[in-house]
């Protein structure tokens, strides 16, 4: 079972979008990710390279006919990091709710 761990690498807005998209997919085409997130080719390549270097993403290049096709998927380590990050977010929410409840409670004299 994985532990809750806030991941700064995933937390960055664009990377969060990419990882969230990939978490719901076994794999996704490069163009699909680019279009869905409204990124440029270079911006997406840069973010995917960062995630790949961290071992979170696997890039697959293949040819369909004569056309090159690039797809990306979360690696097992990436999926685990994503799940740990989600758990960390839930923990932050629970903690802030507890704090709000404690603040709302009238203090006994």
């Amino acid at each position, binding site marked *: 079972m994985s532990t*809750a*761990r*806030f991941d700064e690498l995933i937390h960055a807005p664009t990377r*969060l979008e990419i990882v*969230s998209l990939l978490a719901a*997919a076994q794999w996704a*085409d490069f163009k699909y990710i680019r279009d869905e997130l409204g990124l440029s080719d270079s911006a997406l390549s840069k973010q995917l390279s960062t995630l790949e270097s961290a071992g979170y993403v696997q890039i697959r290049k293949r040819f369909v006919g004569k056309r090159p096709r690039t797809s990306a998927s979360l690696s097992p380590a990436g999926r685990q990091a994503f*799940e740990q990050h989600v758990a960390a977010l839930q*923990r932050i929410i629970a903690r802030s*709710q507890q704090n709000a409840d404690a603040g709302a409670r009238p203090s006994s004299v």
Partner: protein
Amino acid sequence: MADTGTEAVAELAEIRRRQEQVIKAGLVPFWYWWVMAAAIVVIGAARDSGDLVVEAVVIPLAALVMAVLAGTKIPEVRRRVKVYSAPQSDSRVALATIGMIVLVDLVIISVAGSLVANHVHHPGTIGCAAGAAVLVIAGPLVNAYSRKVMLRQARQQLTNATQAGGSTT
């Protein structure tokens, strides 16, 4: 780091939104069912025409449209993204799809058959129109069911992550 609960809530909402986006992209579009249904009605009408030339041209043409549509649209959807799903979810969706095809065929055969037995005109057209009507209703329902199964699974993925123990760092 997301310091506040509000930021964390926003981040989780973003994750859910992206999950839904992927699931939606993994489904065939709404118009797909209408084109398939139209082709079915055309086949029925051609059969009723009684004209061998019309039958010989229109029926293979309509069948070709259906085959090309199924052979291009479904792989096109699969080429973009493959939704993360457990084998049991896949089998439930496959069963729903097969059930829909069987239902459409049964409706066409039973309606057309009973019309032929009662000497009603245009049994093929009416039977196929009935089957097509079932398809345009059941197709989006199968889509909605697939979406629901996949979303439930995606939510489960988040819940499982939440139930994981440990501390934030």
